[in-house]
């Protein structure tokens, strides 16, 4: 994955270097600006078994700030925010690879360094008994549950 481009981040931003499960690293910039979740919508995407995005809906595009062409073919950790503990994603992958459904509150990183909170559910796509990919559906969380998740993730980071 390419590093984020500082020139595309408006205003003040903090720089982080993220290290992913496969050992690769990416430089990201975080502004602290939150984009409110659009009422009534679902953000939907699919990945292959390696977590590479194969499909996403317009709400995914709108909220992430990337174009669809910039999203398809990228690993899902494109949206990983440095405030999210690695343990949450480890748990997610262990759960869905075992064929089970995962739910949790996730702070996603936008292309412009801002973020948005979602309540995410990830399910394995089982076809003829085999997992062929994963579908993730995000919906609007309550502010109360976001506040609890923030506190929990701070203690894990």
């Amino acid at each position, binding site marked *: 994955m390419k590093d984020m481009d500082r020139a595309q981040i408006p205003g003040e931003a903090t720089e982080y270097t993220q290290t992913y499960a496969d050992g690769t690293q990416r430089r990201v910039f975080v502004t602290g600006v939150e984009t409110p*979740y*659009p*009422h*009534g*919508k*679902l953000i*939907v995407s*699919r990945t292959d078994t390696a977590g590479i995005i194969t499909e996403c*809906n*317009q*709400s995914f595009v709108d909220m992430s700030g990337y174009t669809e062409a910039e999203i398809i073919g990228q690993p899902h950790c494109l949206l990983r925010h440095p405030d999210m503990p690695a343990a949450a994603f480890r748990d997610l992958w262990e759960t869905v690879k075992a064929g089970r*459904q995962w*739910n949790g509150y996730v702070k996603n990183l936008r292309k412009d360094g801002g973020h948005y909170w979602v*309540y995410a*559910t*990830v*399910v394995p*796509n089982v*076809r003829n008994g085999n997992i062929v990919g994963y*579908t*993730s*559906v995000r*919906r*609007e*969380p*309550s*502010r*109360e*549950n976001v506040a609890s998740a923030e506190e929990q993730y701070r203690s894990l980071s």
Partner: protein
Amino acid sequence: MTINLTVSPSFPNERITDWYIFNTWLQRALNLPIHLELYDSFGAQRAAIAAGKVDLIYANPFDASLLVREKGFQAIARPEGQPDEMVIVTAADHPANEIPDLKPGTRVACSEDPCVNTVGRILLEPANLGTDNTVELRRETYIQVARAIMRGEADVGFLPVEAFEALSSLVKRDLRILVTSQLHVIHHVFLVGPALHERAEEIAALLTGMHETEKGRGILEALGAHRWQAVHQEDVEFMIDIISTLTQ
């Protein structure tokens, strides 16, 4: 052998005759005796499905999941456009302006429609409202849901967009939409049961070509659609995966 066709009870009452006309058209096109049974409740229809009394069905997305995954039905077509969306409405003079303004104890009027109720519950989550801190008032019809709000018996109500739009302007004047779902990903589908799998391709071709004749177009318009669009197995599997994320 008589084939049994049914339609999800979520369609407006004024379309009952149009579904009978559709059934007559389908019987003639397939040269097959087809009995149309319209159930007046979701529960009665589910019981008929469980008893194996359904061979063809225009199903809501939630029943489609059950029929495909557990009963061996095959999805073949859906109306073009027209994803299933719903609204949460309140009385025009209710103090809540948006969902997060709603408080624990909110009285929710809803029908038995599993799709509308599931999506409605999801849209209440931003207010931290669930079945444990709201009062649910079940009503038999969508119009009764609207009436429950107008009479002050309920704070909010769940309605399909189509049912809300079909309300009279007098009723709509007394209601206000708090949120409209924009899911875009779930929709009714036409399914063929195991007894007709051999003819599934033929039925799919008939439906997807229905708009090409004047008569077919007329029936489709009466049912509120323009044309049928082919549905592939993976399309419906994907929809079922999405529904499974909404029902936990």
